[in-house]
């Protein structure tokens, strides 16, 4: 047992692991032993599939911060166990089982896909394993499903869209439509957009939706001219965003009704969108040209380490590592001290490249939402859409 705890758990070492596990089952738990060995942190992220690039950036930035700390948190060496979740919700529960039961991860970081993250949240709630979500924005994770052991270093779907709606309303837009895939992320963002726009003095007059991940946008686009709108807000991501932005322009709508949206509409997609995206305004908690020393240093370091440019996902992964580090330092590596660990993390002030943030009572970042404009392949920050915005955290009752 001592040996197996000191060496990395190999993916193929199932037999050895099973043998060790039998021993572990037979003997009472020995916390003293656990403290001496490395702390096993499970990184459950997509390393293949549609979101592989996001997973790689999150993991790389997480490991970068760990390296900055000399590979230790709270005085203990940290051993990272990567597991590819393929963004496949069908295998999510089993994958979490693999990390927690087979590989004995003591803290979890993950993931991108909002369906897969549910299995992680459940493990955190049921088994008390601390979890940091470095991307997936389902509002539920920090609202009704909030838990003392669940933290997020990214955003809630509500936040960027609220910022966009607010900025739009303040600019004088009165009537807007909301276009999205009809699924949780799109509808949560839609809720934010509606509330933000209302706070700014405007109104969402129509919601246009299509099933995820269909890309037959034409039936929706054909309705827009008849609605006499000041703006169209939208939530799409990845290839769907590329397709939507291009078709929006091709339908001749871009000049008539300005398109805007939650930042993912143009995040990592500007190359493919080309001229169709030029001038589109979006809101997000990060952007290009964000000028602060932390960001500059972070981007340079990431570029050196990973040989590619940092993006919002890398920032979120980096901050996940920072947050875990703060918690473990406070308990000097004794992760079994759940109460003190979570108290320290809850009260953390994370010095993020996006600008420092704190956590709301439901463990979601309280952060600036920046207004950005797509200009020659970059999402340039042109202002702050909403300052120190907190997710309302409705329905969260920490037990």
């Amino acid at each position, binding site marked *: 047992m001592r040996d197996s705890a000191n060496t990395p758990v190999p*993916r*193929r070492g*199932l037999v050895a*692991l*099973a043998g060790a*596990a*039998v021993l*572990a*089952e037979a003997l009472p738990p020995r916390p003293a032993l656990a403290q001496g060995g490395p702390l096993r942190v499970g990184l459950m992220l997509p390393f*293949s599939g549609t979101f592989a690039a996001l997973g790689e950036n999150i993991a790389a930035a997480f490991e970068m911060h760990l390296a900055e700390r000399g590979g230790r948190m709270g005085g203990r060496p940290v051993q990272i166990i990567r597991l*590819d979740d393929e963004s496949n*919700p*069908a295998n*999510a*529960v*089993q994958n979490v*089982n*693999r990390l927690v*039961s*087979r590989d004995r991860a003591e803290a979890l970081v993950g993931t991108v896909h*909002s*369906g897969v*993250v*549910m*299995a992680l*949240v*459940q493990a955190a*709630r*049921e*088994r008390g394993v601390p979890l940091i979500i470095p991307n997936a924005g*389902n509002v539920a994770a920090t609202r009704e*499903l909030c838990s003392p052991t669940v933290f997020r270093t990214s955003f809630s779907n509500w936040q960027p869209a609220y910022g966009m709606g607010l900025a739009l309303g303040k600019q004088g837009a009165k009537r807007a439509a909301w276009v999205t895939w*009809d*699924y*949780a992320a799109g*509808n949560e963002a839609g809720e934010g957009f509606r509330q933000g726009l209302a706070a700014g003095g405007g109104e969402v007059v129509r919601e246009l939706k299509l*099933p*995820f991940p269909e890309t037959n946008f034409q039936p929706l686009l054909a309705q827009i001219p008849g609605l006499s709108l000041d703006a169209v807000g939208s939530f799409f991501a990845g290839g769907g965003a590329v397709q939507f932005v291009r078709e929006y322009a091709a339908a001749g709508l871009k000049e008539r009704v300005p398109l805007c949206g939650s930042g993912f509409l143009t995040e990592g997609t500007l190359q493919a969108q080309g001229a169709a995206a030029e001038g589109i305004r979006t809101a997000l908690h990060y952007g290009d040209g964000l000028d602060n020393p932390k960001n500059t240093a972070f981007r340079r370091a990431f570029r050196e380490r990973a040989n590619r440019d940092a993006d919002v996902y890398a920032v979120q992964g980096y901050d996940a590592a920072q947050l875990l580090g703060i918690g473990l330092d406070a308990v000097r590596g004794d992760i079994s001290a759940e109460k003190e660990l979570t108290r320290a993390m809850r009260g953390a002030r994370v010095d993020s490249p996006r600008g420092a943030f704190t956590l709301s009572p439901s463990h979601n970042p309280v952060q600036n939402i920046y207004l950005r404009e797509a200009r020659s392949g970059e999402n340039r920050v042109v202002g702050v859409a909403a300052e120190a915005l907190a997710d309302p955290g409705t329905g969260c009752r920490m037990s």
Partner: protein
Amino acid sequence: MIVASRAGHAALALAALAVALMPLWASGYHVQLASTALVAAMFALSLQLLVGAAGMVSLGHAAFFGIGAYAVHLLPAGLSILFTLPASALLAAAAALPVGALSLRTRGFFFLMTTLAFGQMLFFLFHDTPLGGGKDGVFVSRPALEAFGFAFEVPRRSRPTVLLLLNLGVLAAMYAGLAALMGTLFGHALRGIRENEDRMRALGYDTRRVKLAAFVLAGALAGVAGHMSAMTEAFVNPELLGWHRSAEGLLMILLGGLGALHGPILGAAAFVGLGEAATLLTERRRLVEGLVILAVVLVLPRGLAGLRLGLLRRREPAPVAAAAAEP
């Protein structure tokens, strides 16, 4: 379809005993994996009632599995399993009734296509509407283990063991029930329909009604399997209803052997084991799965167990066009 001999049943009982004792000899992870396999076996067994017993190949069966699972979410939390289990079965049966009544107006390939389409319709119902919490799925609170005023509190540590035994018990009951069913007049009628439906009609059997009964019963049993899935994983998502899962059920049946009632149980164990081995060997799980299916259908058309007796198989004699719709 044959039911195992006395020796076969003894072997099955021994295997069940070994599974029941797993918490003593296997890791916690493998105990959970065994629960997954048991649930898969329930699902495949319910599908076997259609495919093996009555010769109806359905690609929409997972929808009823998923509905059984979602029933746990839709019902109020904290109810006893004595209530939620039958409720899941009933809800799944209620969905299977109209789907079966419509699909059974067709035969053969058309049956396959219509079940697939209706199955996907139910999938979209949970995937695209707020009914079940959307595409990301939702947590469910596990039904309570209480009966007749006696509540059984399960501490977190021993939960996998309790779930394992529970799943084993449900699977055993399902198997015993189906074995008995095969010996009833209904079971005989199903077997006759699988052999030669037209002749059965000429003999005086209202074959469509018999098939519908089998379809609804299989749906209800899939609902039971879905309930146990939700109970085991405490999480449901729309993928549970997807047609890929139906196809996986068919694969389990083929792996285990089409001719025997216990085939799907062997097949489910093989399937889960295969998936586990595949993830240990390679990142490309689909590649392994696809190659194994190809190998089985090309090289071992009678399944791993070799239990698909040639005599029990019926060639499809009817021209497709004529079989498309009943007059």
